């Protein structure tokens, strides 16, 4: 069974289209409503998604944990994580799932062409090199939220980060647990160039990386 996990915070404008696009390729859509104050949960339910709600906003990392654990409890064999802001093209889900035939986790790597805002391009480049130097993991787009993995992999890549830094922690855990991974190119739609990881988040991620490297991460 394939379950799509969509962490969502105040995405009433985008969630309907995302669910409609995703449900063509998966058996179940599980939306994690992360304390939204708009109609995200209501719209997601109307579109037929299973919605679980955090009564308080916790952040991306915590939402992914809830969604993935929920998916496993529903009996998922394969889990696809996708952003709720419409940044990822759901038509590429089959490409990610197909790639799981030869690996345990697939990360959709956003193309760094003209479409990607400059600051995100630079941020990705910096994080790529830091991850490579500190953890010997070569994943170009460490911050991508578009992933597919076999449910048994979750315990190997499980994370502590509650916020945006989860993406980096997952990549680092992939390296530490020697999980077989693949990175495949995906299209990206930039609806809001100010959304997503900011410079401050980037600095926090870097500080966390130092903590994970030298602070005895379990």
């Amino acid at each position: 069974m394939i379950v799509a996990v969509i962490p969502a915070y105040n995405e009433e404008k985008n969630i309907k289209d995302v669910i409609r696009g995703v449900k063509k390729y998966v058996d179940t859509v599980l939306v994690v409503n992360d304390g939204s104050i708009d109609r995200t949960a209501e719209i997601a339910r109307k579109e037929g998604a299973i919605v679980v709600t955090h009564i308080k906003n916790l952040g991306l990392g915590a939402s992914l944990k809830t969604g993935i654990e929920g998916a496993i409890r529903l009996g998922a064999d394969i889990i696809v994580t996708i952003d709720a802001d419409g940044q990822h093209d759901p038509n590429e889900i089959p490409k990610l799932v197909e790639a799981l035939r030869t690996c345990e986790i697939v990360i959709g790597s956003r193309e760094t062409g003209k479409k990607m805002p400059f600051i995100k391009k630079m941020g990705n480049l910096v994080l790529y090199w830091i991850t490579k130097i500190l953890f010997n993991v070569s994943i170009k787009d460490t911050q991508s939220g578009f992933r597919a993995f076999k449910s048994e992999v979750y315990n190997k890549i499980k994370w502590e980060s509650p916020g945006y830094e989860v993406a980096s922690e997952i990549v680092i855990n992939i390296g530490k647990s020697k999980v077989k991974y693949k990175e495949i190119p995906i299209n990206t739609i930039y609806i809001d160039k100010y959304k997503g990881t900011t410079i401050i988040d980037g600095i926090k991620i870097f500080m966390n990386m130092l903590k994970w490297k030298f602070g005895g991460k379990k």
Partner: protein
Amino acid sequence: MEIWWKKMTPMQILALVYSIFMIFLSYTSYKRKELNYKEFIFWSSLWVGVLILIVFPGLFLVISMGFKYSRILDIAYNIAFLIIFLIVFQMYKKINILNKSIENIVRQIALANIEDFKDHDKKGKI
């Protein structure tokens, strides 16, 4: 015999009264079970120490000469800073633990009835 309290400055008397009040407050907090025994001993010992230094300020001189401080007040400031940093560090640790507990509780509440949706996918594609 010298009446030592007559030699005290008004500031010293005020500080003395305040210290006695804080010892009393620690005791009543302990009795109301707002502090445990260890916490009561810690806070009351601290205030007894302050009280002794207020009554015998010459002790400050001995300590400050030992640590080569030029002013008695500097040693008090430094000790206060160390205590504040220790308290801030302990608070930071407690806040982290609390945040983690809140996260776990919120997530458990979210997933409480997830198994009820197991039939959701068996009705065919949504």
